[in-house]
């Protein structure tokens, strides 16, 4: 069981000019659900993910994981950070194996798992390189492998495929879906790519611009495997696009463009 209940959560960052990052969020993330989060840049998506991960605490409201209040990080969540946040002093395979190592797994055992996921993200052959030897997209993929390798029951992914090329992206989407289905994970996935969201998610949450509130939630009830060209999927995609345009015009215009 790994479901979140987000109850009236707000998050304000202090400072001379406090920033209200999230405002009155109410949301259920069901156990085993694949939830995508869309929203303008700076609306609080990463903040929401950090709240779910227990890396930050809400200024107001509560976040419950299976009925218990989230007070700090738990190993049941795997997080893919928006910037890969690899440790520069560790090789790629050491970075990917970090979680296992911290959990106390033996080196030999670890290695098999690490290699498996490095393969999956297309980084075989780079296991003994250091992060500064990798391209941006490769680093991002290493970050994904690091989160996946510990098989957490919850995956919190912050624009994980943002710097990855088209093909690799499609492949990684498939892999992620496979893992999700096989291992019955709960996934919260932030992206800017609407088609990606529709292809992956059970539900798509659209946030409004800063301060982030929930603008609309779209259901995507389609069975998997889905076809990307499926007309009813494209329909939902278009609904989302128009909602995005609506958000922009109805919200007090944030950008004077």
């Amino acid at each position, binding site marked *: 069981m790994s479901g979140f209940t987000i109850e009236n959560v707000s998050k304000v960052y202090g400072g001379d000019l406090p920033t209200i990052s999230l405002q009155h969020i109410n949301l259920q993330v069901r156990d085993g659900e694949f939830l995508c989060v869309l929203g303008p840049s700076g609306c609080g998506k990463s903040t929401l993910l950090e709240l779910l991960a227990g*890396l930050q605490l809400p200024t107001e409201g509560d976040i419950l994981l299976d009925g218990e209040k989230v007070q700090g990080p738990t190993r049941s969540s795997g997080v893919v950070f928006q910037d890969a946040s690899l*440790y520069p*002093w560790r090789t790629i395979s050491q970075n990917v194996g970090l979680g296992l190592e*911290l959990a106390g797994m033996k080196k030999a055992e670890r290695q098999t798992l690490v290699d498996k996921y490095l393969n999956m993200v297309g980084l075989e052959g780079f296991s003994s390189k250091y992060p500064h030897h990798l391209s941006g997209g490769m680093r991002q993929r290493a970050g994904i492998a690091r989160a996946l390798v510990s098989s957490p029951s919850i995956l919190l992914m912050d624009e994980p495929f943002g710097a990855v090329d088209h093909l690799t992206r499609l492949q990684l989407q498939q892999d992620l879906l496979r893992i999700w289905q096989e291992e019955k994970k709960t996934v919260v996935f932030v992206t800017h790519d609407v088609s990606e969201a529709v292809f992956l998610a059970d539900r798509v949450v659209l946030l409004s611009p800063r301060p982030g509130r929930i603008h609309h939630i779209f259901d995507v009830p389609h069975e998997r495997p889905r076809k990307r060209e499926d007309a009813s999927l494209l329909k939902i995609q278009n609904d989302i696009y128009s909602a995005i345009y609506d958000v922009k015009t109805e919200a007090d215009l944030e950008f004077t463009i």
Partner: protein
Amino acid sequence: MGTRNAKKIPSIWAGQVALLLVILGICEVLVRTETVSSLYLPAPSQVFRELFKLFGDGEIWKHLYVTLAEFVAGYGIAALGGLAVGMALVLVPWAERFFRPYLSALMAIPKVTIVPLLALWLGIGITHKISIVFLFCFFTITVNTMTGIKQTADNHLKVAKVFEATRYQTIMKVILPSAAPTIFAALRISAATGLVGALFGEMLASKDGLGNILVKATSLYNTAQAFAIVALVTVVSVLIISLIDWLERSVFLKWKSA
């Protein structure tokens, strides 16, 4: 930074040796021509002769051993203690705020003036020297450790948190590796000052050690011998620093060069 390749090494070496010889040569000439009195600056050649003599009779090994033992003990304790205290102050909530003035004050107490007091409390044996070495090293290591730890990137800590790293794991696998350069800077400097501390303690009160024979040499106005001892200490200290450099490069900063 660090984009230089390693090809020119032989010519660098040659240059370094040449510069050294020039400096020694100038000293030699200054003294030989009595521009500088040999009472205060002995001719390098004389110093070499004294060095030879020192090693000739073998006694020097004992003194070297004593001084090194004092240094190693004091430095070791200071390194571990400085790391531990530095970490504790930053990582324990409120500790820094609370102890900062005390740390500043302890750091600020003129060590030279309390060394004689130490003799009183600790005697004039090896404990005394070890404490002096400790005092000479501890604060540098503590302060740099604190600075290094504070430079740990927030997102690196977040990663550790997500994996529920224990406090110990976070320290060993995140904080220390990322503070390593700053800590090593302190270890490098302290190696030098620590050895000076051992010497200083021996010069005040002792029955053997390099500082002990140094006092004898100076009080007998055997300047050449005094310089020989100073040269010896300097060489030892350079060796220790090189060892630390090597340690840093091969253990902690492998990734930078790789």
